[in-house]
């Protein structure tokens, strides 16, 4: 039994430590995924909490099927975000609000520069094909492995690798264009 399988099995049975470990190891990346998709701190915070409330609701019926836990979790996060976008009747935001960044140097000029660059990256990712940008968000935004992304999106790992390669190649061209 793998470490993850052991954690998930214990969490399903109501083990607080196991659930806590799964929560801690995924909280930041769920938030980051939602933030980079939505570009709004308050919305990302609300949805992050809703995702974990849903996880708590559904984890009792989760069955281990050799599928990474992150795939299951990010499918919930993805569905939540789609529901949210549909509910708000809007497309994914291109401009984000003031960002909370993990910069060591709190220099305001550096933060502003970082925000501008982040905006540009987000904006150009949002111009990729839907399949390419979903892979880029999950891989680079959430830091999921190729296997986890493939499982979350119901695609083969080969397809995910091709989408990642072509997505970054297209992104490079977009980034080279003047802002």
């Amino acid at each position, binding site marked *: 039994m793998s470490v993850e399988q052991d954690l998930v099995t214990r969490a399903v049975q109501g083990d607080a430590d196991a659930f806590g470990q799964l929560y801690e190891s995924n909280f930041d990346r769920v938030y980051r995924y939602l933030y980079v998709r939505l570009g709004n701190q308050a919305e990302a915070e609300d949805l992050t909490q809703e995702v974990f*409330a849903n996880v708590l609701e559904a984890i009792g019926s989760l069955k281990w099927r050799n599928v990474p836990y992150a795939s299951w979790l990010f499918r919930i996060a993805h569905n939540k975000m789609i529901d949210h976008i549909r509910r708000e009747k809007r497309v994914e935001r291109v401009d984000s609000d003031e960002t909370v960044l993990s910069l060591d140097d709190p220099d305001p000029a550096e933060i502003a520069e970082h925000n501008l660059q982040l905006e540009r990256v987000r904006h150009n990712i949002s111009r990729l094909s839907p399949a390419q940008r979903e892979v880029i968000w999950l891989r680079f935004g959430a830091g999921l492995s190729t296997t986890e992304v493939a499982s979350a999106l119901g695609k083969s790992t080969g397809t995910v690798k091709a989408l*990642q*390669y072509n997505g970054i190649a297209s992104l490079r061209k977009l980034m080279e264009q003047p802002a």
Partner: protein
Amino acid sequence: MTHGMHELFDQYVDRLISGEETAVCVVHDLDLSEVLGPLLETSTLVVQQLGAVEPSPEFRQASRTWVRSLFFSRLARKESRPGFLFMWWQRRWVTAMATVLVVCLAGMGLLAASVDSLPNGFFYPMKTATEQARVMLAVSDLDRAQLQLQFAECRLDEMTTMASRGDSDTVVLLAGEVTQLVAQMCTGALFESLDIDSEIAGVLAAHSAADSEMSLEEALSTDRAGALQLLQCALDSAPPELRPTIERLMAALSRDFDASISLLESSA
């Protein structure tokens, strides 16, 4: 070659995500650096920019406390539920009572009278109680799923009728009933191998959010989208005998939700 390039690039991306520097990655494959170098440069930028986003310490702390209390309150609720033996006894008791109910009502002719009743009708509670009893008494998992689909279709008919009377509150309730019935079918033994726990959780969450936050049309559209999403998942792994019923319900869903929305709009 292309496949190999995708594979190699993926390995470098793995290393980048884990914090390794691009230059270190590329230097090992000088021949490929011309092709992969620029892509890794872009990848590094993306990793640096997106990776720098973090939740605020206040939110992280508040969320941790909130999730912990939610976890323990759910655990407490679960532990306060009756034990297995009690549940087993209760299940047998409910099944027996349901059988008696169906037999008695059928004998009294009330069952027939309740069949066409509407949600605001006198016999309607009898109709839904009988439906629940029939689902519980179904002899096989396939029969149970067929009944749940059949009753979901009944709710759709009732929804259109209530929409034609301008009763929007009942229409929303019936739309929710349809979603619930479809979700119940998807969690049945027939679809045990179907991995849609997260979809069901998402659909039910969207439904519960729908009542308070959305306009009528949005709430109905959310329920329709959720039910169709679950049915589409179920259709792919359903036994062949069940597929026509699922397809019929999917067609009825699209048709009746549209009809209800336009009926309510015209009566507003």
